[in-house]
C-alpha cells in the first residue's frame, strides 16, 4: 500500500476558476478591511502629532519672546 498510486483528478475548469475568483475576492476584501482599520487606527496620529509639534513650537516662541522682552525692560 505504501506505493498506492492513484490518478489525480481535478474539478471542472469553470468551477476551478470560480473558486479561485471567489477566494481571491475574499482575500482582497479582507485586505482592504485590514488596511481601512489600520488607517482609522492611524487617524488620531495624523492630526495629533502636528498639533503637539505646533503647540510646543508656540510655547518655545512665546517663552523666547518673553525673555527677549525681559532683557529690554
Amino acid at each position, binding site marked *: 500500500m505504501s506505493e498506492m498510486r492513484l490518478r489525480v*483528478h481535478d474539478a471542472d475548469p469553470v468551477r476551478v476558476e470560480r473558486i479561485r475568483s471567489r477566494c481571491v475576492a475574499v482575500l482582497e476584501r479582507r485586505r482592504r478591511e485590514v488596511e481601512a482599520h489600520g488607517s482609522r487606527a492611524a487617524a488620531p496620529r495624523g492630526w495629533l502629532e502636528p498639533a503637539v509639534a505646533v503647540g510646543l513650537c508656540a510655547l518655545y516662541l512665546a517663552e523666547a519672546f518673553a525673555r527677549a522682552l525681559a532683557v529690554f525692560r
Partner: protein
Amino acid sequence: MEREIELRLVARLKAGDAAAFEAIYEAFRPRLFSFLARLTRRRDVAEDLLEETWLRLVTRAGDLSDDTRLGPWLFTVARNLFASWCRHRAVDEDRILDFALSWPGLLPRESPFESAARGETERRLEAALARLAPKDREILLLVAGEELSPSEAAAVLGLAPEAVRKRLQRARARLALEMDEEPDLVQEKVG
C-alpha cells in the same frame, strides 16, 4: 511542498496575499478534489465540498497559526465537510456505495485513448477502493494516497495515532480482499 516554502506561504496568506493563495491552490486543489471525489463518489458533491474547503481557508487565513501544515489542515476541513454533508443528507456513510452514480466511471473526463491506456492495476485498485466503506477508504487515501504520516492522519480524522494504525491495518486487509474478489476476475475464474 517543502516546509520552508510552506511556512512562507502561510505567512503571506495570513497577510491576505492573493499570490500565496494561488500557489497553495495550485499545489493542493487536484489532490483535495481527488480525495473528495473518491470519498463522495460524486463529482458535483466533490466540487461543492472543494469550494467550501477553499473558502474556509481564505476566511480563516488570519487565524492560522504560523506553523500550520497546509496539507493536514486542508484535508481535515475537507473530511469534516464530507462528514457534515453525510449527516446533513442523512446519508449513512457505510451505505453511500448504494448511490446510483458509480465511481470511477463518471469522474474522470478522459479520452477513449486514455481510457484504453489506463492500467489494469489502477482500474482494479479504484474499483476495490470504491467498494470499501468510507471509513476504510478515507484512511487509505490519506496515508497511502496522500502519504500523510500516521500522526497527521490521526489529526485529520480526530483519532489517536494507535487507533489510526489499527484502522489502517484493517483497511489494508479489506482492500486486499476486495482486490482479490474483483468481479471481473471472479467472473473469469468462474467462467
